[in-house]
């Protein structure tokens, strides 16, 4: 998976069917200098946040930097003596993102972020990543089984099934490649499903988009 031509925000999505595909995926794909944010309860079995950071952050960082990265991901934790086990699942996931920021990896891969973060937190993290890519040129990879999330947030999509990448497209081209998606047991993102129904039932050719406002305007033009 070589770095491709720079996409607008540098957020790429890998659509998989389930958890089990993830291990296989990262065995097959070798990426250097990558922070993989993968939630594992065992990681938090340390007496306090300070020990956890020592385990997760591979360079010396100041308390100020720690606090800054915590606040960037929406964490209020500033007491390094806190037992990580008392944190909620969503806070634990945010903590892993904060550690990746402290490590300053060129690539950050988030595994199933939607399992741990609600809409509000996800939107905050994506805003942060978009800003980071514009300023710091980071490459962000989202691995998820949620086709709507991947289609909405990622400019480039890789569809992974049965041990191989079956599709590698810009999100604008997903609609034209929908047969591949459907034949491999995936479903279309809701917005594309609507566009497909309009085409099938009424022969209305709407422009594929991941932006509901654009779709709305297009519907208005076609009525």
């Amino acid at each position, binding site marked *: 998976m070589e770095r491709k031509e720079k996409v607008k925000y540098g957020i790429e999505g890998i659509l998989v*069917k389930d958890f089990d595909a993830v291990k296989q995926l990262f065995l097959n794909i070798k990426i250097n200098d990558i922070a993989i944010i993968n939630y594992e309860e065992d990681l938090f079995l340390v007496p306090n946040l300070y020990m956890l950071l020592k385990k997760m952050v591979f360079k010396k960082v100041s308390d100020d930097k720690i606090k800054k990265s915590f606040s960037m991901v929406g964490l209020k934790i500033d007491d390094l003596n806190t037992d990580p086990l008392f944190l909620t699942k969503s*806070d634990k996931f945010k903590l892993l993102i904060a550690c990746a920021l402290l490590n300053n990896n060129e690539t950050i891969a988030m595994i199933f972020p939607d399992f741990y973060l*609600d809409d509000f937190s996800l939107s905050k993290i994506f805003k942060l990543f978009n800003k980071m890519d514009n300023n710091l040129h980071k490459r962000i990879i989202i691995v998820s089984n949620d086709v709507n999330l991947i289609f909405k947030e990622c400019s480039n999509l890789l569809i992974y099934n049965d041990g191989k990448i079956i599709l590698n497209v810009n999100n604008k081209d997903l609609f034209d490649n929908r047969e591949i998606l459907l034949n491999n047991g995936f479903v279309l993102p*809701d917005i594309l499903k609507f566009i497909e*129904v*309009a085409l099938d039932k009424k022969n209305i050719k709407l422009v594929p988009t991941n932006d*509901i406002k654009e779709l709305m305007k297009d*519907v208005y033009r076609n009525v």
Partner: protein
Amino acid sequence: MNIEFRNITFKYKEENIFTNFNLQIKENDLAYLIGLNNSGKSTIIKLLRNYPCIGDILFDGIELNQKNYKSISSCCSIIDEENLNSISLDDLKKCFGYNDEDYNKLDIKSPQTFMDIIKLNIYYSLINNKYKFIVIDDLIDYLNSRDKMVIYELIKKRHKQFKKTILVCSNNAYGMIYFKRILVLDKGIIKFDGTLKKISEIERVFDELGIYMPFIVDLSIKLKLYNLIDKIYTDNVKLVNDIWKEKKK
């Protein structure tokens, strides 16, 4: 089965999760509870498992306590990450209501994956006659988009068929279009309780909390604003047919 949380106060690590919390899940309810992270959803599940709290939890009017917990919980299925069981095809076949057609839609693999175990636990509770009340915490969010649709359709179908009381908890609104009753929980307070008909109220609460509307509902709201349609849809085909009424393929 009727479930009532009456004047519940619950603290965790000195933090008030619920203060005088009241909620009634009525017999035959098909309810979808949306709450952001740390809103109190999982605490509701804990309370159903008889965690100590101030206030009463009533099952068909009977107060839940240590003595009757076992007998009451035997007709409730609480499905969350801590309580997933291994279920075989033989277990399923023992249940009245087992249906090959629905089972095949689940697309269970061998050996079973974590997602398969989630799907099987939900399916087993839906077809097993002994469960009058089913609660599913967050687990449907773990499924892929195809499986989510299959499970929500199945919940809707089996609810209609067997008249079970069902409560599904989630941190997003994706599944709400399949449910009769929608509840929004925020910091231990019910911010909305009603149906999709009260869409402007739901919209206001979602905006306040940063929850996204399901696509089809969101599009309906926008099209309604432009007077292209006059109601909220939960089905693509019906929406398309309404927008382009006159047009035939």
